[in-house]
Structures are given as C-alpha cells and as structure tokens.
C-alpha cells in the first residue's frame, strides 16, 4: 500500500507545481503586456548598441515600461515603409531627417509638442527638419553629424606644408590642392570628393539662390555660383587632384582611402572617427571647419530623430520613450554612444566644443544646412547624382548634366503630385 500512496502523492505534487508554473508564466506575460514599447532601430556599432540598452534600462527604471527592441539591420527605410503599409508599425522608431517629409506628408506620424524652453534648447534648423507643412512637429531630433575637413598632418608635412597653410576658403583650397598634388607620390590624392548632392547642397546655396525651390522644384541651372563650385570639382577631377574614392582609388568608402593614407584631405562626417580609431588608429588626423564658399560658412548636418506612428499600438508609451531619450536621457545616450547631442544645454554640459576632433563638427552645427528638403528630395538626389557622376567622370559637360538633371527631376516631381 505504502508504495502506491507514495507514488500518488508524488504525482499530486507534480500537478500542483505545473499549475503554479503555468500561472506564473501567464502573469509574467500579462505584466509584459501591461506597459511595453516596441522600438525599431537600425544596425549600429557595439558602442551604440550598449548605449541604447543602457538608456532603455534607465527608461524602464524610471517609467516601468519595458522596452522591446526590434533591430532592422539593413534597408531600414524600405522595411519601415513596409511596416507602415501593413499597418504594423513599431511604437517609436529612428527617423532620418531626409526621410521625414515623406512620412509626414503621408500623415502617418503623431504630432508632438515641445514647451517653449525645450524648443529653444534644440538647434532650430534641426527641429525645422521635422516640421510638417502645417508647422506641427512630428519628430524629436536625437543626434546629428556634420561635415568637416579632415587633414593628414603627416602627409602634409612630407609634402612640405603645415596644417595652417591650408586655406579656409573653397577656391583657395582648390588651388592649394592642385599645387599639393604635384608634390605627392603616385597613387596618393590631394583630396577625395564624394559626388552626392548630400555633401554639397549647403555649398551650392551659399549664394542665397536656392538650388531647390520652395515649391520643391529643381533649380540646378541658372545658378552661376553653384555652377562655378561644381565646375571646380569637375576640373579638379579632370586635372587629377580631386579623386573619387570608389572609382579612382578602389576604396569602397572614403574612410578607407583616408585610413590607408591614399589621400591628404577629405570632407567627411564625424561618423568616420570611430572607424578611423578602430581600424586605422595610427593615422593622425586634424579636423577643420568646412571651407567657406562665397565668403559664407557652410556645412551639411545629417540629423536623426525619434518619431511615433499615429496608429502605434502603445502610442503613449512611444511618446514617453521619445521624450525621455531626447530629454533627460540625452546626456546618457550622447556620452555612451559618442554621438553629438542636438540639445545645446547637453552639448555645453559635455564641453563638446573643446573635445579633440569634434570642435569643427560641433561649431558647424550652428550654421549647418540640414540634409532634408521636402518630399522631392529622393528624386532630386537620384537625378543630380546620376547626371553629375557623368559630368564628373568627363563623359558629359557639366551644363548638359545640370540641364538634364533639372528637366528629369521636375517632370518626375510633377508626376508625383
């Protein structure tokens, strides 16, 4: 008898245990569902991943909302658009300023307001990039990068120059590059140039005449200053003191060309610094503000913000997360991830202006042009890039390229309306 009851009792205990376990699991799942926020981010460096997790943990601690991270490791814009199309958007997600107008125009984003004091803390043009045509704010800028002039002092010295000899203005810089090239060994470029419009829009609009009209239409032709600037780039390539990193040096991105000391100068964003330190630690570099064009200071700013979909499942939690990460959490995020904060108060608190190598980038923020110009930007960028590349590689005249770029862009813009 004894043995059977023993076995029966053992079974009862096991059943009780299972029941408890099932309850526990349900409760936990339930708890998770109570208050959680799904954040979609793109693939990023280990430092940024750690920084995000740290900031997210801080958010959970202070609000009790669990953060569920979705990492879209490639073609981020395409996937996000598909998510919206399938009405399955995340609660809050990274939004690049250049992509903002399209989503704002589609009226799928939640508008969010800032107190006047908060508004004043952000760089005005960064906020403006996330405003819709109705003036409402649809995204909170979280960090940014600006372009700066990178010099390799060692190569300069080998060519008999000192960093201070490098002119501050664009025309001077071009002449300097030409003379410098003569003294450089074969296969080393005085300067590498990226042909994207995203790098030159600010310089092209220093004459006050916009390259892209208020109505979003292209005005590439009939802008003498812009033509002059672009022509300098083309002649630089023809006379072989301005190189294209991919076509001429076989480097798949500018950082590689600079890191392997095959160019003395380049105009790049601060994103290049982690890669330079990580892969090319021994290569010295000095950063300078971008050269002035038509006596006006210019640089491009690439801003990323948080945005909340209007039909997000946990919209409130999404908004709280966005406000936290661009508010009290910004300091933690900026210092841990090494990105530049979009709030001037945080920038000052971190004394970024005198951080080595970042001074030029941070000072540039004040006068930077944000790479974001309405829903027509993708069309303008593709067509400009396509045609300018032909001019740059010499298979078409610059004037023809600009005319074609403008004509094609405007027709496509017309069709888009």
């Amino acid at each position, binding site marked *: 008898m004894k043995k059977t009851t023993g076995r029966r009792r053992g079974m009862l205990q096991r059943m009780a245990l299972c029941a408890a376990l099932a309850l526990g699991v349900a409760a936990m799942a339930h708890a998770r569902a109570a208050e959680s926020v799904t954040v*979609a981010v*793109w*693939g*990023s*460096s*280990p430092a940024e991943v750690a920084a995000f997790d740290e900031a997210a943990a801080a958010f959970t601690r202070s609000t009790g909302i669990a953060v569920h*991270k*979705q*990492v*879209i*490791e*490639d*073609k981020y814009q395409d*996937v996000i658009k*598909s998510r919206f*199309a*399938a*009405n*399955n958007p995340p609660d809050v997600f990274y939004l690049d300023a250049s992509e903002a107008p399209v989503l704002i125009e589609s009226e799928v984003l939640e508008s969010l307001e800032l107190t006047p004091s908060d508004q004043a803390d952000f760089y005005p043009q960064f906020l403006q990039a996330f405003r819709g045509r109705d003036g409402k704010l649809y995204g909170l800028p979280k960090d940014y990068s600006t372009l700066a002039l990178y010099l390799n002092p060692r190569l300069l010295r080998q060519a008999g120059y000192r960093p201070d000899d490098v002119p501050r203005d664009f025309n001077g810089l071009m002449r300097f590059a030409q003379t410098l090239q003569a003294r450089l060994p074969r296969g080393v470029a005085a300067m590498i140039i990226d042909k994207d419009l995203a790098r030159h829009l600010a310089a092209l609009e220093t004459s006050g005449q916009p390259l892209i009209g208020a109505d979003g239409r292209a005005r590439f032709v009939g802008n003498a200053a812009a033509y002059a600037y672009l022509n300098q780039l083309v002649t630089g390539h023809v006379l072989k003191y301005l190189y294209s990193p991919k076509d001429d040096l*076989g*480097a*798949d*991105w500018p*950082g*590689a*060309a600079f*890191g*392997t000391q095959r160019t003395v100068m380049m105009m790049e*964003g601060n*994103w*290049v610094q*982690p*890669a330079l330190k*990580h*892969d*090319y630690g021994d290569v010295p570099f000095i950063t300078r503000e971008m050269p002035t064009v038509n006596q006006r200071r210019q640089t491009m700013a690439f801003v990323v913000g948080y945005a909340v979909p209007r039909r997000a499942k946990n919209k409130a939690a999404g908004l709280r997360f966005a406000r936290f990460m661009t508010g009290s959490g910004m300091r933690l995020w900026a210092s841990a991830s090494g990105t530049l904060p979009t709030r001037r108060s945080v920038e000052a608190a971190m004394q970024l202006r005198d951080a080595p190598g970042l001074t030029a980038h941070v000072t540039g923020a004040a006068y930077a042009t944000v790479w974001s110009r309405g829903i027509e930007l993708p069309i303008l960028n593709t067509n400009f890039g396509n045609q300018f590349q032909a001019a740059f590689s010499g298979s078409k005249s610059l004037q023809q390229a600009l005319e074609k770029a403008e004509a094609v862009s405007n027709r496509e813009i017309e069709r888009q309306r």
Partner: protein
Amino acid sequence: MSRKSYANGALYLMLSAYSLLTLAPFIWAILTSLKSPREIAEAASVWPQAPTLAAYETILHGPFYQWLWNSFMVATAVTLLNVLFNTMAGYALARFQFRGRGLLFQALMLLIMVPSQVTMIPAYMIVARLGLVDTHLSVILTSAASIAYIFMMRQFFVNFPAEIEEAATLDGSGPLHRFFRIVLPMAKPALATQAIFVFMGIWNEFMKPLLFISTVDNYLLTQGLNAVAKQYAKSSSWNLIMAGSIISILPILSMYIALNRRFLNINDQSSGIK
C-alpha cells in the same frame, strides 16, 4: 590512341581551367576574411600579410549559434516541404491528363514572371494579418512551395519512361502508391538537385527574414551575419562579410557534396564519350 587522348586532354584542360576560374572568388573570399580591414583597404596584395582570425572571432560569438540553429531549422523545414509539394505538383502537371492542365501550367508560369519587388510588400501584409510577423513560421510558410521547382520537376517528368508506370497501373497501383513506390525512387537525381537548390535558396534568402523577422534572437544566419558586418553604418567591414559568407557556405557545401552523388550516379554505363 593519339586522336582520342588528344580530345580527352583538351577536355581535361578546359574543365580544369574553368574550375580554377570558378575557384578564384571562393579562395579570394577566404583570403580576404583573414585580412584586417586596413589591409583590405590597402589592397596591397592578394595574400594576407598579417593573417588574423579576428573576423571569425567577431562572428563566432554570442548569438551566432542561435542564428545558425534558426537557419538550419527553417531551411530543413522549407526543403522538405518544397521537395514534397513541388515534386507532387510537377508530377501531376507532367503525367496526369485533366482538363485545364495546360491553362493551370501557363497560369503558374505567369506568376513567377511578376518581379518580387512589388509582391514582397503585399506578402508582408498577409503575413502581418496572419499574426506571423517575427516568427520563423512566416519564412517557412511563404517559401513552402516554389513554382520554379514545380516547373523543373514537371520538365524532368515529361521525359520519364512511361512503360514502368503503365505497367504499375496495370497492376492496379493507385496514383499515390505509383508516385511514392515507383516514381520517386527513380527520380533521385532530380530530387537531389531540387533539395540542394531549395536549401541553398532559403539559406541565402535575404529579403524575407529582413522583412518578417526583427528580434535579434530570431534572426536567420544571413540576417545575423549581415548585421554584424554592417556595424559601422557607413563602412561595410569586408573581412566580416567574407568570413560570414565562408561560414554560411560550409553547411551548403557539405550538403552538396553528400547529395551530389545522387544526381551524378557515376555508374559504369554512364554515357561514354570515348
């Protein structure tokens, strides 16, 4: 003897030369995976000056094994489903006589002519509505059958010797019995070919996991390796990409070597070229 050995010599020469040509990218990928990003950028020499396993170490840690297991599970499930469904469909289209067969075949052919760029988003919508997002089931179900391989199997069965089947029909064996007992065993080369291509297709699939799966732990191998390789947003570290492609090739290569005995039954009376 000379005329024959000359022809054979030329044959071996051509084959060996072409084999080396096809080997080049593979070896090149291995060498690049041993280089540091700096050395790759300098592109000084093909041979790695300072070979390092850093790329493999970066990849072979943490979630890698989880991704490998996810990919293996999904690929095996998809391959089994595909081989079964596609072969059955191909067999039906080739051997059964029914009204509308030609029309059905043409309709299927029409479907694969539509570029995936426009069908991917609606497919994602369907998967989302089925609540399958971020599950492996989404990838498995959406690729459980493929018209391309239904088409291939149909073409294999068209020339299939009918006598054996006709004999089986006379013995009163039903279509299912005939299919599994007689047709499949004889269609081994075609089945092996299909299994390899389906497995490889889903193993290297890029778009579906990217769209359907977003939690890092659920990643499939290609997705994971791509994420690791594209850590520094603007620069893709080619040593990681190459190391990733080498690692993801090994399972397919081993499966291929195991299976290629099938579609190449090297028996004596294979057609001689002497």
